[in-house]
């Protein structure tokens, strides 16, 4: 268990692109363009991943075991068979959770110094 904790900790802090991809896949399996669109929609267009950044990140995340390629395909009428779908792994989920915890702790600290909105 301690090993696994150390493993997860070794990923932190996550690059913004990596975190966004994990968040996007936490909801459902998606293909590349869907991830880009989801990130844009969630951030109101503030974060726009380029294809190059997206696939470099995916390539690395696959190697690191944060993602896998999903074998389940959407219904045939919606599927484009040339597309690849990605699914978050349990490790990916754990890493995303750990990153979220790290970020919220940071925000809490900032709040305590009056640097962030919310209760002091």
């Amino acid at each position, binding site marked *: 268990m301690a090993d696994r904790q150390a493993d997860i900790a070794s990923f932190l802090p996550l690059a913004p692109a990596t975190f966004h991809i994990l968040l996007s896949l936490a909801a459902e399996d998606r293909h590349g*363009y869907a991830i880009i669109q989801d990130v844009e929609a969630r951030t109101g267009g503030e974060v726009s991943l380029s*294809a*190059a950044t997206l*696939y470099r990140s*995916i*390539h*690395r995340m696959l190697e690191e075991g944060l993602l896998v390629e999903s074998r389940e395909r959407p219904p045939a009428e919606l599927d484009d068979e040339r597309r690849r779908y990605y699914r978050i792994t349990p490790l990916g989920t754990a890493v995303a959770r750990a990153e979220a915890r790290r970020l919220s702790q940071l925000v809490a600290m900032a709040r305590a110094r009056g640097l962030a909105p919310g209760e002091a």
Partner: protein
Amino acid sequence: MRLYRLLLHLYPASFREEYGEEMCRILRSRRQAAGARGLLALWIACWEILPNALAVHGSLLRQDLRYMIRSLRQAPGFALTAIPVIALGIGATTAAFSLADFVLLRPLPFPQPERLVKVSESLPGYPYLEPSPGNYRDWKRQNRSFAAMGALRPVSLNLVGPSGPERLEGAAVTADLFPLLGVRPALGRFFTAGDDREGAAGTVLLSDGLWRRDFGGDRAVLGRRVLLDGAPYVVVGVMPPDFSFPRRQAALWVPIRFGEEDFADRTNYCLQVVARLGRGVSLRQARTEMGVIAARLERQYPKDNRQTGAALQPLRDGTSEQGRLLLLALCGAASCVLLITCANLANLLLARALARRAELQVRAALGAGRERLVRQLVTESLALALAGGALGVLVATAALPLLARLVPVNLPVAGVPAVDLPVLLFAGLLTTLTGIGFGTLPALRACRDAEMGGPRQGVRAGGGRRERLRSALVITEVAVAVVLLVSAGLLLRALTRIQATDPGFRPSGVLTLRTALPTPKYENTGRRADYYTRVLGQVRALPGVTSAGFTSFLPMVMRGGIWPVSLGGEPEDRGADHSASLRYVTPGFLAALGVPLRQGRDVSEADTFDRPLVAVVSASFVHRFWPQGHPLGQRFTFAFHERTVVGVVGDVRVRGLERPSEPQVYLPYRQVEDGALTFFMPKDLVIRAGVEPASLLPAVRRIVRAVDPEQPISDVRTLSEVVADETASRAVQARVLGAFAAIAFLLAGIGIYGLLSFAVSQRAHEIGVRMALGARAGEILGMILRHGALLAAAGVVPGAVLAYAAGRAMASLLAGLDPGDAPTFLAAVALCLLMTLFGSLWPALRAVRVDPIRVIRKE
């Protein structure tokens, strides 16, 4: 969009195949979404590719390296073999290259060095002879080919400095020499035409080294007076630190002064002439013009300039032909070692790839593409090559001081060869090429196997293309090893043959040193005689000394000093067959050197200038001029006077052990006019003793100091050292080549061993079956040994042919040894057989120990 697709090629192929299409599709969708700003989106996308592609490459590299470290940790033997193998190959090649680069390739440290030429006189038998002042002056006046021409004469001068009197090497130069080379003084000024004039105050330029050592690097040295050979000189300048001309030890320069009488004698070969080609003039044009001028001078001075031509060569080529050949042989040997290294590396990698077949198959099955596997393997071989290369540079750095002894002393370049930037670049390039070149092929083969499922584990025959390739590599190694062994053997045999040459004197137990007497102080023959008599008298009285004497020059140290001989009033012929080397000697010199007296007597104290002029000649002199014998009492004209032969002695190898020498003539030191032939003034003291020669030195120093406190002593050496120096560069050469041959031999042995052990493990099943069917251990042993012998034989035959060719190419280094020298070839072949036996023995024994039951059950 096409640009974008093109840029995708910056990614690793596996990445491109995986994601390229999707990336294009996304970009297309985004362009549509962006509408009017679609083009901008495309540009941004293109810009983003480069950093991302680099990042992907980096992450793959990290991954490969991690993987490599893990797998090397599991099998460290491979890395421990491969890295030293590479280090030896790269190290040997790098060291040889730095030396060759330093001596042969690197331009001289002057602007436009390729325009500088050395101009010499030529006579039949003497292709490059030092020009006389008269001819130099006429060449300089009449030529149109050169922008400038200058001359110099090496001198050595006694400087009475802060640490007592010392002897310094330098040159007397014409005022136009330094400007013509294109150098500038670091301090002060060069000589001017005024300094050249007779009667002008003496001026001197110091080398940077001398200035720092004797004058503390003081800038106020300009204008300081120093005493050189007892005469006052004013320091006018200091040369830059990297300037050493014409030789590396040059410490100071003085103006050369010609009197009218210097120009009169055109047989006084004493100058070195350097010229810079004029704009647009080729060396060939200059040669043609100088040929015309030389022919004109020959008509004008038919007696002195008979058969005299002008010879031009690039200043760079001033180093001896033999020195170049030695270096080229060294480079050839180094390339051989590198070749063997590469063959061995390729073999190691092939074997390793085969051993990892299963692992590669698993990775391929898990979806790793071929490109990805090749990349992994090439990264590994490159990393190994770099590690080996780095170690190799260290090897080269350590080896260079040894090799530096091969740098000729007359190379006008300061410093010693070092591992510097060009050399490092060379080593880096070599390493990369080795790693990629010899890593890719095994990787491609291994991956093809892995993709195709590979030869099944059960396949056992030793045949197949891979086996053939590996055998070819081992055969190449053996062939190259034979070439190196034979070459090293030939050089060693040549060395021992030269060392066994009789120099014509007995070198052991003799101390030599130089007390160069300055002029005008010692111009007077009587004053000189007084010096010699007093020094020799006290030296001979030292305990253990058996004989002692002075001579103009020691043999092998000064090889020239020749003079034309004429008999019975015939005109002088200055060709090689009418020249003899001239030495003025004191009584006792010939005995001290150990030259045997064959007839008549030695020179004596009674041979003074007012008595009949006499000479002692060598046996070859008699043979040439009076072949019928009876030389005593014969007369010949030599060095301005007619002389009578009073003694005959054995021949001495004046020009060294490897070259024929002119016959020798020894003249009594008193039979010369005051101020004449001062160049030939006796200065080298030779002392033969029954005690250790070096132990006499303090006493000799005291004696010289007592006779003349201002007289420095230089060039202290034993006569054995003088002779050993003759073969020093050869000895280094033979040793280096021997080391290369030993490395090659070892590597080829490892190659045979590796191939056979692999073959044995591949054929374990077959061997097991054979043994189960009743084959005896002896038969199995014989089978493997035969395999090894076959490999060796296949390598030895072409190797011997190549070795013969190599031997012929370096025939001039072999001192007359036949390039097909049978003992050398036999020894090399025998060594190769021995190596094969040792290389095969261990695998063969392993084959014998194969347990048939276990092997067959494994199937």
